[in-house]
């Protein structure tokens, strides 16, 4: 679905008004009546990114075509209806974006608009069991930086406070059996999450065991014609302040891009399909202070990433491809496009993620400070986010990200810093 940008506003407002009227039927008093709830948040924000012109992977911004300046309207609906055992959920999202980018010194701007259903499902709860059919965020696990226990959502999206991640199309059944909970699911499509890597037609089994202070989960998934995924996570709350956890996942990704020997004849990179089996593991700890602020540390080993030597070869080949692009643009840029588009989902093998944040349950002010570090090449990214209530239905937010590292490093390779300013209008 791709409505024209000008009509997007009208569509959004019409939908907002329609929903507001629908809310009048809210009763909430009797179980036999539908209880409807709805919210519509209109986010307006502008972002400025300091894109590296000297990027090895993206010379002159000719490959990634990153936006230097952006203005966005992001409309997010959250519509719910419940009646007895039934629950209906819909989260349509509308985005209109004005962006400006500089490619080889030539600045261009454009306007794009899109609409999509982030979530939309029906759920039937019957005693200890529940059926869910539709598009649902099928995510779990305590990790923030990345979530290795999930075959569909490796990037947990928790490091980006403005992310809006769509669900996967599925049918699932969950039943509670004492302290155990068993989920069987069939995922029809994940194209909304990663269009290039649809893990649709996957059967999944998840078994949870929950105690008074812990939750352990094992996950097995098999895509039709693909290799099985095995994963799991555990979380433990030893006392009031600490939360300790870990996640792991073992799978064969669709491909692995490997740099060929530097200086050799032939293509710069070769693609192995599927990739060898990789094992990713994350360990984390969360400590909550007396005032509700939380300190979180996570370590991730990502065996599908490059070793130090491979990472060096990856950038050296990119530099060679960039030189080729000066003589033969089509060939050189194609090689760089492959290097960017098919690189591992995380470039390095070992990462540390630190986060300090205010109590998210205190209304009015929320802030967080984070640091992500690639322990292999020592590049990193600092992130700060502050959101403050300005009026009962309006809050303002600022997000700042700054990368540290050379042009041939994980975090330093494409852009230096990004500043984002915006407001959220809670329409209803």
């Amino acid at each position: 679905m791709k409505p024209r940008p000008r009509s997007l506003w009208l569509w959004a407002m019409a939908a907002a008004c329609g929903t507001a009227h629908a809310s009048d039927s809210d009763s909430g008093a009797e179980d036999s009546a539908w209880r409807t709830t709805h919210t519509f948040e209109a986010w307006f924000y502008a972002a400025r990114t300091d894109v590296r012109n000297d990027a090895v992977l993206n010379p002159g911004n000719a490959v990634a075509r990153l936006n230097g300046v952006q203005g966005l309207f992001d409309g997010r609906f959250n519509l719910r209806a419940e009646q007895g055992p039934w629950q209906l959920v819909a989260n349509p999202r509308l985005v209109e974006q004005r962006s400006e980018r500089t490619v080889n010194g030539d600045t261009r701007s454009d306007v794009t608009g899109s609409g999509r259903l982030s979530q939309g499902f029906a759920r039937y709860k019957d005693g200890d069991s529940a059926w869910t059919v539709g598009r649902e965020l099928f995510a779990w696990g305590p990790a923030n930086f990345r979530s290795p226990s999930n075959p569909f959502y490796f990037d947990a999206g928790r490091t980006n406070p403005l992310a809006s991640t769509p669900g996967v199309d599925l049918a699932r059944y969950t039943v509670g059996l004492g302290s155990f909970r068993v989920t069987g699911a069939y995922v029809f499509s994940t194209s909304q999450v990663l269009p290039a890597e649809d893990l649709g037609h996957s059967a999944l089994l998840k078994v949870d065991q929950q105690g008074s202070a812990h939750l352990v989960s094992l996950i097995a998934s098999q895509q039709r014609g693909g290799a099985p995924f095995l994963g799991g996570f555990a979380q433990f709350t030893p006392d009031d302040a600490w939360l300790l956890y870990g996640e792991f996942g073992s799978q064969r990704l669709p491909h692995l891009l490997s740099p060929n020997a530097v200086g050799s004849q032939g293509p710069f990179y070769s693609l192995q399909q599927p990739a060898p089996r990789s094992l990713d593991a994350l360990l984390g700890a969360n400590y909550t202070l007396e005032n509700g602020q939380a300190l979180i540390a996570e370590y991730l080993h990502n065996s599908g990433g490059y070793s130090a030597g491979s990472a060096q070869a990856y950038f050296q080949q990119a530099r060679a491809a960039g030189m080729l692009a000066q003589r033969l643009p089509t060939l050189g840029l194609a090689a760089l496009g492959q290097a960017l588009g098919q690189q591992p989902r995380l470039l390095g093998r070992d990462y540390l993620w630190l986060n300090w944040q205010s109590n998210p349950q205190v209304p009015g002010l929320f802030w967080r400070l984070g640091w992500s570090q690639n322990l292999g090449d020592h590049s990193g990214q600092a992130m700060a986010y502050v959101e403050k209530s300005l009026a009962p239905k309006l809050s303002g937010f600022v997000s700042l990200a700054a990368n540290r590292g050379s042009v041939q490093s994980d975090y330093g390779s494409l852009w230096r810093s990004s500043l984002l300013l915006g407001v959220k209008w809670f329409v209803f």
Partner: protein
Amino acid sequence: MTLDRQQFLLTALLATLAMGPACAAEPDAMELLKTADQGRGGGLPGLVWQVRAHNSGTGADDQPDQTLLVKAAGESSVAEVLDPPSSRGAKILQVSRNMWLTKPGLKKPVAISPRQRLTGQASIGDIAATNYAKDYTATYLREETVGDEPCHVLDLKSANRQSTYDRITYWVSIRRGIAVQADFLSLSGKKLKSATFEYGNKINLSGRSVAFVSRMSIADALTDARTVMEYSNIKAQAVSSTEFDVGNLQ
């Protein structure tokens, strides 16, 4: 001789009357606690209610009030934020010591530790049904008057890790059987917070009308910070266990 016997009987009677109160068995602290819990949702198969929380004092004057829809059963509770608009749709799930927080737009529920307060001075344990008889061992201390109401005073000590507080001094009305005041203490006995309770609500329990909590005011012992919670739309009803499945939280 007869006179002596009468004197003896009279003396014995007076002595018995004088010693009576001292010899009478102390009230059963655990029974008092069970009865008091009923007025705060304890022992029910499930409970659905709305809580409006207002924070005041240092650092809280500009915080908007919060309205929560709470579903609770046993050791589990889920609270959904209805107001303010900026937090609407957020949910906090507690199953024993396991806790999660989610908001519209989050990819997945975030695991949090129990120390994460709900709002102001209130913990998640303060808005859920109270099961002190299950979570604490009670010892009878004394009788004392709160305002003009005679009360039993109980000393509660945490009996398991599910309890929100380590120790509580609890005042239970002799006449009404409900708790009217509490001091929340650290393990060492240091007073951390204090609370008062009002019972303007009624629920039907096995055919009889039971007074039910309508207002809880929690004050910090060291600062002027205070949280007042008002309870309304109370329904005593079974709540499906699927409501407390973190997989169904969003």
